[in-house]
C-alpha cells in the first residue's frame, strides 16, 4: 500500500477544510470555522488498480499575520493551491504562495483550484484571470465544496499524477 501526503494550502476562508470534508465525508457546512494549525484526514483510493492511502493535511489559511510553516509541508508528495473565485485577491495570493511552496519542496505535482464555482455569478475572478493560470501552464480546476463539482476529480487526478511521477522517478 502506498501512502501519500497532500497539503491543502491557500488564503483563509477559501474552502480548504470544506473541500476535504466534501471529499472524505461527503458533507458541507455553510458555517465558517477557521482552521488553526493543522488537521489531518485520511482517505484511500485506487490508482491503476493499486490502493493509495492519502493523508490530507488541511493547513491554516494564510492571512496578513499567519504564514504557512515550512515544517508542515515536509514529506508531501503533492499539494492543492486553493483560491476563492469570489475574491480575486486569493488567486493572486495562491500564485505567490506556489513559489514559496516550490522553494521548500522542490517541483512536485500540484493542482490549483478556484473554489465556490456554485457562486460563479458573483465571481470576481474573470476569464482574464483564468487565462493567466493558463499562461502559467498550471493545471487548474473549478470546484465547489458545496455542490461537490470537481472535488472527486481533483483528488483522483492529483493522486494519479503523484503515483505516475513516483514511477518515473523509480525508473
Amino acid at each position: 500500500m502506498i501512502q501519500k501526503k497532500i497539503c491543502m494550502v491557500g488564503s483563509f476562508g477559501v474552502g480548504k477544510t470544506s473541500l476535504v470534508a466534501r471529499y472524505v465525508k461527503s458533507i458541507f457546512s455553510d458555517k465558517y470555522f477557521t482552521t488553526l494549525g493543522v488537521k489531518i484526514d485520511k482517505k484511500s483510493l485506487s490508482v491503476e488498480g493499486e490502493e493509495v492511502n492519502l493523508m490530507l493535511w488541511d493547513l491554516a489559511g494564510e492571512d496578513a499575520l499567519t504564514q504557512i510553516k515550512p515544517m508542515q509541508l515536509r514529506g508531501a508528495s503533492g499539494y492543492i493551491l486553493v483560491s476563492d473565485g469570489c475574491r480575486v485577491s486569493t488567486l493572486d495570493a495562491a500564485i505567490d504562495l506556489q513559489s514559496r511552496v516550490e522553494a521548500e519542496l522542490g517541483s512536485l505535482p500540484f493542482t490549483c483550484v478556484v473554489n465556490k464555482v456554485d457562486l460563479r455569478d458573483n465571481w470576481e475572478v474573470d476569464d482574464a484571470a483564468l487565462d493567466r493560470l493558463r499562461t502559467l501552464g498550471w493545471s487548474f480546476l473549478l470546484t465547489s465544496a458545496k455542490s461537490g463539482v470537481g472535488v472527486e476529480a481533483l483528488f483522483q487526478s492529483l493522486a494519479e499524477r503523484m503515483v505516475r511521477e513516483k514511477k518515473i522517478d523509480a525508473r
Partner: protein
Amino acid sequence: MPDSPSTDPLGQASEASHAAALLLYGMQFAVFERDGPRHFTAVSAAPIWFERLTEREPATDPTALTEYFPALEGFLPMAEEFWQTASTQSLQSDFWTEADAEGIEYHLLAIAVTAGPRHFLAIERADATYINHQQLQLYAHEMVIQCETITRLNREVKRATQAKSEFLATMSHEIRTPLNAILGMADLLAESHLDADQQKYVDVFQRAGANLLGLINDILDLSKVEAGHLELESVNFELAEVIARVLELTRVKATAKALALGSSLAEDLPPMLIGDPPRLRQILINLLGNAMKFTDAGRLDVEVSRDPEDEHAGALLFRVRDTGIGIASDKLDVIFENFSQADSSTTRKYGGTGLGLAISRRLVELMGGRIWVESTLGQGSTFLFTVKLGVCDLPSLVAASHEAAARAVTTPTDLPVVHILLADDSEDNRFLIREYLKRTPCNLEFAENGETALGMMKFRHYDLVLMDAHMPVMDGYAATCAIRTWEQQHGGRPVPIIALTADAFKEAVDQSLSAGCDAHLTKPIAKATLVEAIRLHALACDQPPQSVPAPIAEAESSLSALAPRYLENMGKQLEVLRLAESLEDYGTIQRVGHNLHGTGASFGFPRITEFGIALEQAAKDRAMSKIRTAITEFEWYVQHLLAV
C-alpha cells in the same frame, strides 16, 4: 498562549513524578519522557481522551507517537533541537486537531520540556484555548473580507460614475454640436432685416436655445463634480470685484422685476483672497438667480462677513437674502439635492432645472464649506454658505483685470487680412463659420478632415487654422500633431491652431493643448468669441489691419449643402399651409409663399420658388381654388423629392 508558563512546574531539582503530577492536573495532559530519538515512554497513566485517540488504529511502533499523531512530524524535529540545546524552558507546538472514532474533535498542543538532564513531551488537550483563538481569528478574517467587499463596491461605484460621466460628456458633444448650429443661425437671423413678428420668433428661438445650453452646462457641471473631474483654481482675486460682477450680471433682471439689489461687505475682510473666483461667482449667481425666481416684490441682498465659527482670516460667510415666497420648513433639507425644487409644481411655475442649488452645494463643499437655508414661509429666505479661502498679501490687481476686459470688446472690422483654414467635418459648422466671417477680410478655406487639412497645409501658407477635434479619417489632435511635426522637419514657423470642440471638460482642453494647439474654443462658439480669438492669434502674423472689400459669400453653393434639411422643413411648411387653407388664413399663406419664393432657388429648388410666387399671388387675390391647386402640386413635388 505563553511560551513559558509563569510557574515552572518542573523545578530543576524536582522529581519527574512531581512534575508529572502537576502537569496531569485536570487530566488535560498526557506526559511522556523522551528516552531516545523518537522513543517516548508514558510517565503516568494516560487521560481518557488520549486513550480514545490511540485506540482508533493499532500502531506498529507506539513509542514513536507519530503513528497516532502524524501532525507531530511537523513539531518533533524542532523539539529534538530544543532538547539538545534547551535555550528556553519549554517549546510549544502549533495546534492540531484530531477526531475520535465517533467524530468528536480534540484540539491538541505538544509541549517539549527539559528538567535537568531529562526531556519530557506533554500533549495537552486545549479545546478552550483553541476556541478562544479561533473566535479571535474569525473576527480578524471577517473584517478583512468586509474590507475587501467595501473596496470592491467602491471600485464598482467609481467605475459606474466614470461611465456616467463619460456618457454625459458624449451626450454633451452630441447635443452641443447641433445646438451650436442652431444658436449660430439664430444670431445670424437676428442680424438680418426682420419684421416685428419674425423678430419675436427669433427672440423666442434664442432664448429657448440659451436655456437649453444653460441646462446642458448645468448637467455637465454636476456630472463633472460628481465624477471628481472638477478642479478648483487657486488664483489671487479681490472679493469686492467678484461681488460687483455678480450684481452687474443680476441687475438687468432685477430691474425688470422692479426688485432692489444691494450688497454689503464687512470691514474686517481681507481685500485679496486666493481661490476660484469664477466658481464663487457661479455659486452667487445661482443663489441670486434662485432668489429672483421666487421673489416678486422687495429686495435681494448679498452680505459677506468673516465666518464667526472659524478663526481663519480666509473663512467667509455669505448670505443671500430675499423677500420672496419662502420655503416650508420641511423642505429646507431637500432643496440642495439633484433635480429637487421644494415642490415639483414650482418647477412648472418658476422654471429652472433645480440643478443650480445642487451644483452650488457641491462647489461650496469643494471650497471646504457648507450651505444651508433659513426661511419663513411668505416672508423670504436667506441662503447661507461658508467657504475657506486663502489670503493673499499682494496689492490690488483690479486695474489689470479692467484692462483685459476693455481689450475683449472688439468689432469684426479691425481684423487683419488672414488666410484661415477650417478643418471641420460638419457642413453646418463650416457654413456657420463662413457666415460669421462673411463681412470680415478673412479668406476661409475648408478641409473635411484632419488628413485633408494636413495636405493643404503643406502646399499653402495659412495664417491660422481652426481645427475641429472630432473628425473622421484623422481627428484634430492627430492632425495638429502631424502639422507640428511637419513644421519642425521643414523649419516652418508654427501656424497658430485653435481647437474647436463641443466638449467642455478640462481634459478636452488639456488634450488639445498637449497636441500642440495654441488655444481652445468650446462650441457653441459665439461670433464675437471667434472673431476675438482670430484677432488675438492672427496678430502673430504681424500684418497691419487692412480694409479690404469682403469677399462675396457664395450663398447659393453654401446653402445648397443644406438642401436636405431645407426639404425636411418643407414638410412643416406644408402642414402650416394646409391648416391656413382650411382656416382661409390668407395672411399666413401669403407669408409662407413669400418665404418659399425667397428661399427655394437659393437651396437649389427653383420650382419651390415658383410655387411660392404662385401662392403669394393667389393669397393676395384671395383665390382659394388657385391656392388649393398650388398647395397640392407643391405637396406632390416635395414628397417626390423626399422619396428620392
